[in-house]
């Protein structure tokens, strides 16, 4: 298990190495990437801000919830903060399981929970200004 909030580039292979073990037949790895558009507008770059002392324990809690639902799963998660350019990886969730159905389900569940409960915020620098993204809303700075 590994849970990181980091200013550094995330290496998905490192997370996969954490979840790999001889009983793992399947690894599902989700990477969130900075897209060049949002709400129909061009995006130039993003800034992510985290409440790191809370974000890491929240990630750990999600990992424990996954272990309760999929006892054979192993989980690693990392979220990057700071300035990110288009095409850069903002978040990675990697899950190993004996078989692929659970690996997909647990990974999907992990990123969904992370997006709703881990205190990390996105400031979007778009063609028409800068916005804090709060759930489905974009609030101008």
């Amino acid at each position, binding site marked *: 298990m590994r849970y990181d909030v980091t200013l550094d580039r995330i290496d998905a292979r490192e997370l996969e190495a954490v979840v790999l073990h001889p009983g793992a037949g399947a690894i599902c790895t989700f990477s969130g990437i900075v897209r060049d558009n949002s709400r129909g507008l061009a995006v130039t770059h993003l800034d992510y801000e985290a*409440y790191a002392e809370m974000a890491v324990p929240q990630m750990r809690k999600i990992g424990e919830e996954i272990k309760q639902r999929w006892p054979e799963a192993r989980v690693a998660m990392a979220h990057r903060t700071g300035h990110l350019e288009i095409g850069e990886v903002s978040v990675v969730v990697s899950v190993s399981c004996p078989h692929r159905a659970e690996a997909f389900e647990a990974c999907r569940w992990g990123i969904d929970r992370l997006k709703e409960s881990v205190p990390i*915020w996105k400031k979007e620098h778009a063609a028409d200004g800068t916005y804090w993204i709060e759930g489905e809303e974009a609030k101008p700075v």
Partner: protein
Amino acid sequence: MAEAIAVRVRFFARLRELAGTDSGALHVPPSSNVEDVYEALRRQYAALPPVESVRAALNQEFVEWGAEVSAGDEVAFIPPVSGGR
């Protein structure tokens, strides 16, 4: 009346920008809850939005607004997280 208790407050993201600071100390009456803390802060930082659009965390755990604070607690005010598809 019992002595006021000191809590540490933290702001993040848009709330941090609206408050103009990322943290502070606040004295509140004993038995205050998280909402009391936030309302005291709104008097100090007028740009903070109403409680409806904010979540609170007490010592790094999400809590309801009625959660009571103790001396030395860290109370964080948190906009909705980015979510996204």
